[in-house]
């Protein structure tokens, strides 16, 4: 896991209460029952605090899985490469 993965994992653990085993790019609201629209707002707040990345509401609304969050962060210049 890269340092930014760990950072993102910590945000998701705090908001969604997931374990590392659920930190999977394909996992989204269907797999993680704590992930609803309010949780998405809280994830966005966490990304802003930890990565300095301000997520556009339109992007926020399109998030379907953890992989989408990473893609959005990559677009904001955050690297997930080891």
């Amino acid at each position, binding site marked *: 896991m890269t340092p930014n993965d760990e950072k993102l994992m910590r945000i998701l653990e705090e908001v969604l*209460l997931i*374990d590392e085993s659920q930190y999977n790019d394909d996992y989204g*609201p269907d797999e993680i029952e704590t992930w*609803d*629209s*309010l949780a*998405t707002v809280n994830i966005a707040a966490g990304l802003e605090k930890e990565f300095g990345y301000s997520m556009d509401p*339109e992007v926020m609304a*399109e998030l379907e899985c953890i992989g989408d969050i990473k893609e959005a962060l990559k677009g904001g210049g955050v690297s997930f490469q080891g």
Partner: protein
Amino acid sequence: MNIAQNFISTVHRQPDKLFLIGPDGSEYTFADIYSLARKFATLLAQEGVVPNDRVIITFPNSVEYFICYLGALFNSCTALLVDFRTRPQHLDYFRTNGGVKRWIAPKHRPEFDNIPGQMIYPDNLADIDEMPEDKLCSVENPIALIMYTSGSTGVPKGVCLGHDNLQHTIKSISSWANIEGSDRELTTLSLTHLFGLAHVHIYWTHGGTVYIEEKFQKIPQLLQKITDLNITSFPGTPGGFKIILDQFRDQFHEHGKNLKYIIVNSAPMAPEYVQKMLDTLPNTRFYMYYGLTEASRSSYICYNDNRTKLVTVGRPTPGAEIVIGTPDKPLRNEIGEILIKGPHVTKGYLGIDSSEYFIDGWLKTGDSGRMDDDGFITWEGRIKEQINIDGLKLTPMEVEEVLMEHKRVKDCAVVAAPDPITGEAVAAFVVPEGEPDKKLEIELRKFCKDKLEVYKIPKQILFIDAIPRTDSGKTKRILLKEQLSGEKE
């Protein structure tokens, strides 16, 4: 009269009218649902369910949920509607407390395997015969629904609602909101709760169409659906509309301009957001109503017509009576408990002496309020210890009991913390065993996640040295709440 009879009357009047659009876009006419629900009624009978039996229906928002629900009502059963997110131990409590014969779920879930009486919704109803029309709703059963609410002691209470209660509510809402057969509603509300469900009762009575979404998510697409499906009604919670008004106001203005009405319920809405809603959709009638499961839709207001009353929840609905304080000497312009009477009020709680919850036939709501000289009611807060998370309610004790099971919790107390979106959120004060840290906070929240419904999980956990209590051992929650506001500053 059984509320499913309303549905049958509509089927006979307009069988080919579109009734439901499922989350996957599949469309069902009244005749389609009628046929499927009659088949399901037969299936229930084959499973040994007879009139006046109680069955739990625990589904997410879906077409199948309504097939089960109507099937149960056709069978003259009492339906216990349980949120699909309910934890196994709570479902089992509802099953035993409710004297339930079968509980019906859409799919197999291993963690529920040990609960007796499970019935999984079948893949296919094709080979099952429709229950004959003369057998539908053929036995008198005064109780249509039982819905569990958080009790003041932390033990959920089953609220019994009769067909007559629900018929009154249908009539009442239809009259003041002017809902017609040509209306089309988009709902994201959980339909195992009365706010959303009562709307569907109205639509099946008048012959309208309901588009069901499983969750409140993907808001831009949701708003697009308002245009694409010619939606005229969009009920929701204050928290949901706050997100829309803060983040998607332009899209809402664009797609919502043909909405006939918006109805908000479940929790208070800040006046600035009421105003924002009126400004965003000036041609849409914007209603708020106040009630509780025990007395749904007790007061209402149309804010478009009452712009000086934005802080209020309106006046009593037709047939409902509301007084503040005591029935003999009701208060005006003073704060007291809200008391409600009327044909919509519950017949009582399942299996317990309900007399302490009533005074001379008036339901004691546990809410405090004030009535002004024009009869408008302002909701002021709660007398009962209850937390309201955008309409989903719980008592502090439910969470405290779970936290106390954790080996590192010596003592704890739970209070409502103000939340900018949901109005309130759960905050837990914990006296820890050993030195606390962030890891323990997350561990405790995860511990709650395994035992409680998601909305009951504390959003924040604060570690303190001792829980303030009175000499008699009662938690001084006001002091803890003050501590929370101190933290914010």
